[in-house]
């Protein structure tokens, strides 16, 4: 699943006080040559401190950002542009019935503790994700695993209970951990290009280049993640050179000071975070397709995006972000058209409009979006009552109890269109055909077949206005111009530090 757990403290009120700050100009602008310092320390600024260091024990978004690919590696990795590549798996074979995967492990891989990687460690790590007490976000996806065999030290044979074309992709989330490691919430034993140096809670997490790494050594000697609770403090750190790069800007307010300064580069990448006006498709009046279409057509998404993000971000017409393989441009479906909205409402018997309550999480951008939606829908006769709730209340009231009419929520993950195939999901979209397509897609023999089926799902849910997808967030990475090789898309909150080169 895929909903962002934004901590309340991450956005302090201080950010709303727009102070125009002039960044310091004119420090060393050495644009010459491709030389970089192999022993540099890269200082990374982030708002997401890990809760603990174990991604099967509720480590949160921060632990993925800091440790995925840097300290821990999977059999596969998800690259910054959304491709799945082999990592600790040197090769793999799938049986004809699609149920048995045989992985050959890369030779000469050692854990940071010095122990050699064996098939036992892979088995242990997979079982850890699907264990009863696992808090992994991928537990549900990987429960198709029926059995794991280890015929020899370099071979792992996994049997599935049903076909799963996403299996290999899902494995990119599974850290391969030393089966004998202890205290993984506070220490680590992975195979990545860095080993954990020190984690100072509330402040920073540092990692140093691992000399025994099996692959290409990291392009810098040390990477330090510095954690901030407040976006202004984070931007100040970048402006004063305390950090070299910011993993993701949360508002466009501070960008001007960096955009007009040649010492910095502002990268506008593709995120996978979508802002949704999610209807309860099982609650009146949103049981009626025409009402959902009318609401979608009555809201000017472009204007909303402009007011929240300035010139950044993209419009989307479905749950599918451009980095998913089954993306197609569906912005024309139920596009902004107030006249059509009124017509649809009249057809549905709501010519005089109606009232509904919008459960709105209390952190940005939800309150802004709610106010905007309220004013837009007033123009077609719909009265919106904004009900502000905390993330906890949202989780209990909306997500667990389905006790809502409509809500706002950001969904961060890639490939999460498939939730429309689950009629028990919180938004209650129930279309037998779509459910079947999603199932068939998962059991498809080829990715081409899977892509084709999921495109159908995307189109059908868009036409049905299953939800209103307001916009796609931008992924903005701002870096000092001395830096190169950093990821710009940050898919699934990953931030690979090992390719970052820093000029001295």
């Amino acid at each position, binding site marked *: 699943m895929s909903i962002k757990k934004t901590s309340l403290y991450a956005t302090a009120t201080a950010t709303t006080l727009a102070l125009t700050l002039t960044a310091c100009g004119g420090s060393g602008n050495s644009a010459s040559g491709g030389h970089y310092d192999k022993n540099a320390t890269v200082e990374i600024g982030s708002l997401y401190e890990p809760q603990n260091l174990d991604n099967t024990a509720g480590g949160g978004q921060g632990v993925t950002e800091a440790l995925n690919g840097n300290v821990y590696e999977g059999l596969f990795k998800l690259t910054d542009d959304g491709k799945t590549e082999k990592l600790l798996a040197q090769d793999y074979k799938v049986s004809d019935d699609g149920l048995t995967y045989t992985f050959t492990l890369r030779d000469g891989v050692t854990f940071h503790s010095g122990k050699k990687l064996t098939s036992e460690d892979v088995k242990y790590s997979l079982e850890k994700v699907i264990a009863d007490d696992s808090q992994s976000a991928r537990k549900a996806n990987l429960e198709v695993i029926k059995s794991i065999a280890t015929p020899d030290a370099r071979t792992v044979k996994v049997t599935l209970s049903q076909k799963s074309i996403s299996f290999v992709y899902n494995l990119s989330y599974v850290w391969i951990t030393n089966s004998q490691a202890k205290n993984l919430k506070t220490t680590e034993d992975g195979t990545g290009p860095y080993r954990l140096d020190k984690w100072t809670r509330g402040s920073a997490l540092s990692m140093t280049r691992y000399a025994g790494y099996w692959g290409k050594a990291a392009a810098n000697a040390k990477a330090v993640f510095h954690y901030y609770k407040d976006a202004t403090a984070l931007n100040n750190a970048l402006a004063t050179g*305390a950090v070299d790069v910011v993993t993701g800007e949360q508002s466009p307010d501070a960008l001007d000071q960096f955009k007009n300064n040649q010492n910095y580069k502002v990268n506008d990448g593709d995120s996978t975070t979508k802002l949704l006006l999610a209807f309860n498709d099982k609650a009146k009046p949103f049981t009626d397709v025409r009402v959902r279409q009318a609401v979608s057509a009555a809201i000017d998404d472009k204007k909303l995006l402009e007011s929240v993000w300035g010139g950044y971000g993209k419009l989307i017409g479905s749950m599918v972000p451009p980095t998913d393989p089954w993306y197609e441009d569906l912005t024309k479906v139920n596009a902004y058209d107030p006249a059509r909205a009124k017509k649809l409402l009249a057809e549905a018997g709501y010519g005089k409009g109606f009232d509904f309550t919008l459960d709105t999480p209390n952190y940005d951008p939800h309150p802004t979006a709610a106010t905007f939606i309220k004013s837009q829908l007033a123009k077609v006769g719909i009265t919106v009552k904004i009900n502000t709730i905390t993330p906890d209340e949202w989780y209990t009231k909306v*997500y667990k109890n389905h006790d809502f009419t409509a809500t706002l929520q950001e969904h961060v993950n890639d490939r999460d269109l498939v939730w429309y195939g689950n009629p028990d999901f919180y938004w209650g979209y129930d279309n037998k055909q779509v459910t079947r397509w999603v199932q068939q897609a998962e059991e498809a023999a080829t990715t081409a077949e899977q892509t084709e089926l999921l495109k159908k799902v995307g189109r059908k849910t868009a036409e049905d206005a299953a939800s209103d997808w307001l916009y796609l967030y931008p992924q903005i990475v701002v870096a000092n111009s001395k830096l190169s090789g950093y990821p710009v898309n940050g898919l699934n909150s990953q931030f690979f530090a090992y390719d970052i080169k820093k000029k001295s």
Partner: protein
Amino acid sequence: MTRYLLRRLAFLVVSLALASIVLFVLLRLLPGDPANALTSVGADPEQIAAARHAIGSDKPLPEQFTHWLGQLASGDLGTSFVSSLPVGPEVASRLNVTVPLTLIAFTLAVLIAVPAGFVAAHKRHTWYGALLSGVSQLGIAVPVFWLGMILIAVFALNAGWLPAGGFPQDGWSEPAEAIRSLVLPVLTIALVMSASLIRYVRSATLDVLGSDHLRTARALGSSFGQAMWRHGLRNASVPVISVLGIELASTLLGAVVVESVYALPGLGSMLATGIAQHDYPVVQGVLFVSTLAVLLIGFAADLVQRIIDPRLRGRLSGGAR
């Protein structure tokens, strides 16, 4: 005096015990489940139940409470639900930031406020006396985070003299860096605190200036300085000290704002994170230590007042009650 001390100490222990019950219960009354913070949003009921069991929040409340008290009695603040790290050492490492920050800022504020407040009272009819009063009035209206942002803009972003925030990862083992990162936060707190202190010092001084005993002392031939030194200072400092105690305590607790503006890993930011994550042991631990600190500060202020003012001694410990 011994009887007073014993009574005061008993009061401290009882307050602490009451406070610990209140904070334990209040925390449990808050909406939300700590297991939610641990699990990903899509967690199924089994995952949530497993999380509850792992942190012990599935046990009955009295059992959780006695468990916590038992730990406290042996000097253990428990283990964080979220990070699995012991709370005690983390509180200690956070105090390494918050205590120097608060104490230095407090000392600085007193050093600014006492002379300034005195001058504002004694020279209230001159232009600079009036200016001092005016500036202190203005200073009270300034929000801490706003002043912080201004100082950052001037001294860190524009001048580049000091860091805009953060604290060295190795803490005080890099003393120069640690001190540099505390300069602006200390200044922020000290300026805001001294603004309100100036007013108290000023009004306390005014009271003394208009008092009969000072006039009598002057009439008996003391110079203004002598009279002030021997009779005025003592009398003026009694109300100021009780305010100082309150100011120090509220600065300690209010450091969260400054810590957030300057990204300092202090006690306040630990509390804020703990609350957001429903990490009961962390919240309880921080609040317990803060309560203890506030009670101790109150105790100290009381004690100092009694030493300064013999009238208080007579009234409370003389067995009159």
